[in-house]
């Protein structure tokens, strides 16, 4: 069994204790809501999308250290990026979580930029039950992006 240190990296605990971009955005910002039906974690992702760019993002909801820190890191990584860049990032993150690509016709993955803080979540793969915690925010983000179309 892998040790807890693989899961609870210091940087994860930091994002958990001090989450970035907590809050809400008023309409016309998009609001997407995600549930982890297995454990009850809930998340709200608010997005301001202008000219194909996520100019602002806020996160609401409750969850465990993994889902909360993943949401926090995501918000930091996404803010100010273009929708295309973000979609690329979501795919990279899901790959890292060993989730198979669903869309065979997707464009080639751009892995040139470093993942930064997000790398710290790589250890989650060793705890398969927690993968759903880590990806909750990201799936909710995707939902928000498609609403903004």
């Amino acid at each position: 069994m892998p040790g807890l240190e693989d899961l609870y990296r210091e940087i994860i605990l930091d994002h958990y204790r001090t989450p970035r971009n907590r809050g809400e955005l008023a309409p016309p910002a998009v609001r997407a809501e995600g549930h982890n039906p297995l454990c009850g974690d809930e998340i709200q992702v608010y997005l301001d999308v202008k000219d194909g760019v996520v100019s602002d993002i806020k996160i609401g909801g409750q969850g465990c250290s993994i889902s909360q820190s993943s949401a926090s890191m995501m918000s930091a990584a996404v803010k100010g990026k273009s929708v295309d860049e973000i979609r690329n990032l979501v795919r990279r993150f899901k790959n890292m979580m060993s989730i198979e690509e669903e869309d065979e016709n997707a464009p080639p993955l751009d892995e040139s930029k470093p993942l930064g803080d997000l790398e710290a979540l790589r250890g989650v793969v060793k705890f398969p039950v927690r993968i759903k915690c880590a990806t909750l925010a990201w799936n909710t983000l995707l939902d928000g992006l498609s609403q903004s179309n």
Partner: protein
Amino acid sequence: MSFDPVVVKKDFPLLEREINGKPVVYLDSANTSQKPRQVIDAMSRFMETSYAPINRSAYHLAAESTDAFEGARGAVRRFINAPRVNEVVFTKNATEALNLVAHSWGGANLRQGDAVVLTHMEHHANIVPWHMLAAERGVELRWVPLTSDGQLDLSDLPKLLDGAKVFSFTAMSNVLGTLTPVKQLVDAAHAAGAVAIVDGCQYVPHNPTDVQAWGADFLAFSSHKLCGPSGIGVLWGRESLLDAMPPFLGGGNMIADVRLDGFSCAELPAKFEAGTPPITEAIGMHAAISYLCALGMDNVRAHEAEIAAYAIGTLKARYGDDITIHGPTDPAVRGATLSFQFKDVHPHDVSQVLDQANVCVRAGHHCAKPLMKLLGSNATARASFYIYNSTADADALADALANAGDLFGL
């Protein structure tokens, strides 16, 4: 034959049993099949070392058990060549699977005056759910008739399908052994704009199955007929159809959210799996599928065509016109399930006499009363063969039958 049924039989502990000093000749596999050691052991081992909740708890043991459970889903996907694993829904049996489709897809899509096409050889599991829907909302049931040798009579199929929303049919008759032309039926359904539902209860255990080659929309079957445990069945459906369907049973696991004022559904396949699933049974079904795949489903089919030919040949040679075997005689279009009438002996009495020799056949209506009516009786005796039955079992059947005529002085 590519496997030896006499060798296969050694994997099935029950078939070593003797009653009154005579071995059991099990010819009732169309009803339910026996279980190989591999399945029994997989279930015991799982309960002894890995049993834990599925999809609910986060500890190591629960993750292990969830993996094993979802592994079974993957095995089913490969076994029937379904495109996606989330299209595989575990039910309690094929009956629940067919009720699920009738209730959920039918409930959402069928209106007063819509037509559902069934065949005259359906099992009650593929009739009664449609009767219930018909009674509830005035849906019309239409019936594909049979030819005199027990095949589907397709001469009027386009007319029957005209304007129909559903065509639900068996891939193999549990009474006559008839194999139906599944791909042709699916194509005809689609040409008419109907969804094609395949009852694979009898087919899947005995033949290689490929839902994509068929182009079918739904497939239902049960574990207990394919060497797996009781208590679990499968509904496969196209993702787009399942996704659009309302839920069936409500409760734990099938929800995304529950509030005092309503609920929302989980993703597939959880949406259709309310409550604690048949966990150990999924493990057992996986072992059964692995067992069958190791034999090779092509070989299973070849064995059964052979044994059907042998059994029909033997019974006919021995009893001539004293025996009537229902359904097609050509082994190319039938499995090894033989319904027969012996002289004037009632099937129930036939089965009783055979039982004295431990030859186990079913007598009755086989949950196909409309077909019985068509055959002009209300029961048949039925001998059904599987991978563990050899020509010796067909001989035992033929031998034991002699007593039936004697006893009734016929």
